[in-house]
């Protein structure tokens, strides 16, 4: 059974974010809260509270898998969202420090 993470775009800049424990949001996928299929409903309910709080827009659950480098999305579209344009490695999350010590979650 696939593991689930809830993703959304941040309201102010549209950046891709993932729901972390306790309903916080992070730009770093590996810091996301990972649930099961059965958890999707409650995860989405929590995400919708952040929509109401104007932190994020259009949340939805995605399938993720544990890879050699940690958590990765199952679908190519979500892999690109999690990293950035594959033709501009200087842009997007892949160009920054979204999972490092300077990371600040919402």
């Amino acid at each position, binding site marked *: 059974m696939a593991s689930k993470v809830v993703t959304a775009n941040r309201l102010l800049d549209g950046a891709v974010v993932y729901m972390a424990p306790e309903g916080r949001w992070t730009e770093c996928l590996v810091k996301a809260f990972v649930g099961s299929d059965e958890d999707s409903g409650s995860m989405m309910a929590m995400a919708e509270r952040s929509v109401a709080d104007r932190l994020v827009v259009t949340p939805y659950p995605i399938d993720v898998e544990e890879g050699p480098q940690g958590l990765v999305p199952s679908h190519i579209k979500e892999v*690109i969202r999690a990293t950035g*344009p594959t033709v501009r490695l200087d842009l997007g999350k892949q160009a920054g420090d979204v999972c490092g010590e300077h990371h600040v979650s919402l």
Partner: protein
Amino acid sequence: MYRYDEFDHTLVNERVVQFRDQVRRRVAGDLTEDEFKPLRLMNGLYLQLHAYMLRVAIPYGVLSADQMRRLAHVARVYDKGYGHFTTRQNIQYNWPLLEEVPDILDELAQVEMHAIQTSGNCIRNVTADQFAGVAADEIDDPRVYAEIIRQWSTLHPEFSFLPRKFKIAITGAPNDRAAVKVHDIGLRMVRNEAGEPGFEVIVGGGQGRTPMIGHVVRGFLPVPHLLTYLEAVLRVYNLLGRRDNLYKARIKILVHQTGVEEFTCLVEEEFELMARETPQVLPGGELARIRAYFQPPAYRALSPVSDVLATALGRDDGFARWHQTSVAAHKQPGYAIVTISLKPIGGVPGDATADEMGVVADLAERYSFSEIRVSHEQNLVLPDVALDDLPQVWRELEAAGLATPNVGLVTDIIACPGLDYCNLANARSIPIAQEISHRFADLDRQHDIGELKLKISGCINACGHHHVGHIGILGVDKKGVEHYQVTLGGDASETAAVGDIVGPAFSGDAVSDAVETVIGVYLGQRQASERFVDTYRRIGLKPFKEKLYGAR
């Protein structure tokens, strides 16, 4: 070029103020996303994969040097240093911040630009031949009519909530560089037996999920009736177009399901009714007022032959190569039209950095009466360059990395942003374009292959015009893996055709091999100076299919 009057300034400035307040209310929580989304889309603001995306209108692809500099400024200050010129002659910024978008729109309004009509189910930004007003083969300048259509359609209350988006393209020349036959309405200037200019009206073309070539519903429409006739077409569509199914809502489906003859009757009846009730023609004075904005610049009286050019062509092979592909005939003796390729080998088709935009603006100012055009093939154009200046323009483009001599050749690829940026895409377009570009980088080989329109879309919406590529490539998602369907024989010109699907889709790492195979078949079979598409029409799909799939 057209300059805003007081009405235009007021309209655009008011829109900026409105949108600033809408953004403020969204951030403050007074508007939900559901309420805000249609408002942001009316101002060209989309939410894409990584960020917001702002699509700025470049009406009929015409820009001044100052406007180009402002586009560069926006890229530099508000975005990440580049922009993407699209197949609808617009520019897209991929990384704007929501709260800065009103500032961007304000900056654009100062140079008479906006992002209205770049989204939503309205009449979209009108597109035109990028050589409008300067082409040697032109009957009349389509910019005059494109501007009239712009003024008529902007915020038109009756046509702001159509069943679906509506795209109008116009060309003044028999050689169609504006793909008018694959638009909701295509207008092609023609002359009647008396020699008067008018329009051939083509309706129901389009690409996307159901590609169709438009049908001629009026062989000759006198110029004064332009808006009345467009209004008649749009009224029939607005009343009868389907609103129950997103995929069947474009006018092409209505024309197809109604039948061309019946649809034409409905339009003509509406047109007659409108003409009877309130005789509407374009006022001659108004036509003249708009035409005055598009008077030719102060051309010098030059010889049609340039010794400077002839000497440079004989002395420098690099310049000669560039001249061969990038320079087109101008209607004014002693001048030429220069196309600037935005397709460097291995580059991102249509992308330009702020610095490159600045270079083009400077060149336009010094050598082309401060005017620039954007083509639907994602290149830029300097429309009015004196023949004597061509060598120097080339040197400066070369120094800026903007002199790739591949216009019209296999590496002059149209590609949509695809899955690298776009929320709708199923597969990446740009990396495929880059790989093919590298594969065919050798100029001798490109010239040997000759004219070849290769077009790539990352999904069936066909922003990359793959249906009308001589070779079209469509990205599809097969069980979560990117695959690419190849079509052959498409054509966006006056001999428009939708390409034929050659067979099962290829994996991403096999698609450039497939293109190589297709081109190999063409080179083996072509006769005399046949272009790829000519050979395809003569020999059909079978030899290509056999070579591609024969071993399977």
